[in-house]
Structure formats: C-alpha cells, structure tokens
C-alpha cells in the first residue's frame, strides 16, 4: 500500500509535539511512581507476609499504576481510550471466567495466610488426607502423607474444608479401651494398667491419666485408659503404650476375652458320639 503525500501531511498536522512530550512525561512519572510504590509495598508487606504474597502484591501495584498512567498519557495525546477501556473490560470478564479457579485458589491462599490454620511442619488432616505440611504456596498446599506420598491440595479446597491441625497444641490425649474377662479382678487390672502408664516417660503427669471402667459389655468389662502425651510423640506413644498395656495384662494373667455368647436351648439335646452311633446303626 502506498501513502500519498496529502494523507501524510494530514497525519503529521494532527500530531502535536507538545502533547507527545506531556504524555511521555506523564508516562515516565507513572513508571517512577509505580516503581517507588512497588518497593514501598514490598518493604512494608514483607514484614508480616510470606515473600511470595508480598512480591505478588508489589508487582500488581506496579502494573496497575503503569496502566493508569498509560491511559492518562494516551488521553493527553488525544487518543480516545473509551474503546480501549471497553475492550479491556470485556477482556477482563473473559479472563475472569477463564481464570476463575486460579483466582479462587489465589484468594484462598491469601486468606489461608491471614487465618493461619496451620504452618509448614504441622501435622494436619484435610479432606481425610493426613500428613505433614511441607509447603503453603499461593496456589496450593503440599502435604507429605505418612506413607511418603506427596499430596497437593488446591488452596480453594483447603479453605473450604474442615482442617484438623493435630500439632497445633503442645499436648494431645490418647485413649485405649481394654476389655478384661468378667471373672478377672478389675482392681488388679486397674493397678497393672496404672503402673504401666505411670512408668512411661512420655505420659504426662499433668493433666493426670484417667483409668476407669467404661462399660460392662457383653463379653468383657471394658476399661478406658486416657493419657496426655506431647503432641509430637503421640504416634510413638500410641504404638508403644498399647503394646505395653496388653503385655502387662497378659503377664499378670488377666484374660482379654474374645466376644462370646451363652446359648440356652429350650429342649434337651441328645448328643451321639460316633461309637454310640455305630452301635445304634448295627
């Protein structure tokens, strides 16, 4: 396409060098203001926010300022920006729909940061998945399961789920139910169990352990043992203590019964031994 002389002259006549200079200055000021605000936001928020959120906020501030000043500069140059803004709005809506889940995860990540239901290193259970929190980033939370499998949970799901933080407090209670036979001496069993609990170094003295008969069940007298342990050791104590309680009962000759049922028959039952049956048949 060739541009004839008259068209070129028309275009050149429309350009006002003064407007261009002012627009350039406005844009440059915008860049400077954006840069300064970016540093300010980053330095302020880094004190109480994770680095990734602070950095993201600083960048967002910078780009918003630059876009605002760019639109102002275009306006100064006499370019009608209403169409641009409209197009930008429509693009924003389209992007909003397309990036809905990403934005949702992002916002959830920020809210999770503020609420702080857990921190890296905590043992948590989210949506039935339990493990140690390895990383909380802007889009997702990563948990290392007890089986060594890394689980990535989107922040939106974490935010809307019930979260059990197992290690949020320094101590945790463990419960065991041990059934002893009705014929056994319950007081002897109580003393045996108490001795095991008191000897264990990681069972806390305070809050005090509780041992009591919880239920007179169908086949056994159920004794409940409740102890408090340091939260970081609860799994180790659980494994060790249950074993020691069982062993102590066995060593003391206290029977842990199987479920059993006594059956009473209305009419007498005739029992035929094989020898008798042979005689009957002959």
């Amino acid at each position, binding site marked *: 396409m060739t541009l004839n002389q008259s068209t070129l002259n028309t275009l050149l006549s429309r350009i006002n060098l003064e407007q261009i200079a002012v627009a350039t200055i406005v844009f440059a000021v915008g860049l400077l203001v954006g840069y300064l605000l970016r540093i300010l936001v980053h330095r302020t928020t880094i004190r109480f926010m994770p680095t990734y959120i602070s950095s993201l906020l600083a960048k967002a501030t910078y780009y918003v300022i630059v876009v605002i000043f760019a639109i102002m500069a275009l306006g100064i140059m006499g370019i009608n920006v209403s169409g641009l803004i409209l197009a930008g709005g429509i693009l924003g809506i389209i992007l909003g729909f397309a990036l809905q889940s990403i934005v949702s995860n992002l916002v959830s990540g920020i809210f999770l940061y503020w609420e702080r239901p857990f921190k890296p290193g905590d043992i948590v259970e989210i949506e039935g998945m339990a493990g140690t929190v390895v990383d909380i980033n802007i889009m997702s939370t990563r948990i290392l399961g007890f089986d060594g499998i890394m689980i990535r949970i989107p922040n939106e799901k974490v935010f809307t789920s019930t979260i059990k933080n197992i290690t949020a*407090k*320094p*101590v945790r209670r463990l419960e065991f139910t041990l059934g002893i036979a009705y014929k056994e001496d319950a007081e002897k069993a109580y003393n045996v169990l108490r001795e095991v609990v008191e*000897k264990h*170094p*990681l069972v*806390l*003295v*305070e*809050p005090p352990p509780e041992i009591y008969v919880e239920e007179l069940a169908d086949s056994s007298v159920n004794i409940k043992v409740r102890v*408090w342990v*340091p939260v970081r050791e609860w799994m180790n104590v659980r494994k060790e203590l249950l074993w020691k309680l069982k062993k102590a009962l066995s060593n003391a000759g206290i029977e842990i019964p199987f479920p059993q049922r006594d059956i009473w028959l209305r009419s007498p039952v005739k029992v035929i031994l094989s020898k008798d049956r042979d005689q009957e048949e002959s």
Partner: protein
Amino acid sequence: MSKGYGELKDKIEITTQQQQKTVITIAKNNNKVIYTRKTGNMEIHRIIGGKDIKVTLQPVFSVFYPDISKQYTEYILIKLRSPIDIAPQETLKAYTTMPVDIGVTVSNGEKQYFIDLVFCNNMKLALYGSVNEGIIARYHEANITTNKNVYEANKPGLSIVELGLSNRLNEWVTISKILVNVNAMKLCYKPSTWQAYTSKIVFTAITRLTANIAYHSISCVNAVEALKPHTAKLPVIKHKTSMPWGY
C-alpha cells in the same frame, strides 16, 4: 576406681536414685579409648579416636530423652511435696533440688564433646498451664527445706538449688510449684563427689496471677562449672522468666 563427677580414670560404679547400678569402664590405648557402659542388661561400647583423650562425668539437667542429642524441654517444673506459705511483704531463703543426669564428655584439650548420658532419674513430663497454651516441662517432685545440709547426701541424680522466695503482695501466698528455665541456669559440681548445685533462683510473687523467676549468676567456689550440651545453649541467656499462677 573413680568416684563421683570429674575425670574418669578407669572404672566407676554408679548407683542411681532408683537403686539401678551402672558400671562405666574405659580402656586407653595409644590413639584411642574404648568406652563401655553397662546398665542392667544393656551394654554399650564406643570407640573414641584421638590422643590424650580425657573422659569426664558431669551433671546435666535432666531434660534430655532418650539421649543427649534430644532436649525435650527447657523447663523443669518443681512440685513441692509440702507447699510453702509466705506472709505479705516477706522473704524466705530455702533449699530444694532439681533433677540431674550424668553426662559423659570426651576431650583432647579444650573442646569437650558429649558421648553418653546416664539416667539417674525416671523421666516424667507434665503440662504446666492449659491444654491451649501450656508448656511441657520436666516434672520433679521435691522437698523444700531451710537447712542446706539436708541435701549433702552423696548420691547422683539431684542438684541443690538455693531459693529466694519473696512475696510483694499484701496478702499471703502459697507456693506449691516453681517453673524454671534450665537454659538460664548454670550447674557446678564438686569433683570426686556426687554433689552438684545450681545458680540461685529468686521467686517473686508480683501479682495475684504472676510470679517472676530471676536467675542469679553463680561462681563455682571449690567446684567446676558443668558443660552444657550444645542443644541447651541459647544465643541470648534469659535472666528472668515469668510464670502464671493457678495451675
């Protein structure tokens, strides 16, 4: 045969508070030491390489479990078997005990290194405070007395603590528990004996809900300052802690 804290020459027999016997022996060669400890049926051996190795026994606050590498807590909760009552605006000097175990260190000059820990007490922990915001402390039941000589018994497992009890309130206070931070305290021992003592603690009831615990400096007169395991050292030594009342 050696006796008490200090340098171990060849062999030592330790009988703990629970009457459990431990025998430690060392065999020195040119450039190594073979360390053996027998407690009950358990026997451990360690080979220590180096020339002019010195093996030393010294008291360590009983906050390590299951070995010297893991400090469970920095607090000891002293539960007084008989609570003590202090009149308004009065002070009292008393003595009590804190649990210690025996740390075994090796050195070839200046640097000392912990290689073993002999438990002299049954480890027990307790929560001081509420489940929501309490802290886990080593639990120790102790008698309190105004006569220091009561604790001159020559048995490992305990260190003597001098207590200054002060009541700044205008009402009587009853003290039954004292929570102390062992990282802010020092331990001294008298070589060739099982006597250990700590820096003085001053317990001051300042409000109806709070007490201050101040840790005084200690000069080990006719005694040696015990080395702290590296895990028990803090970059900033606290000279004062607070404890809430009512638990």
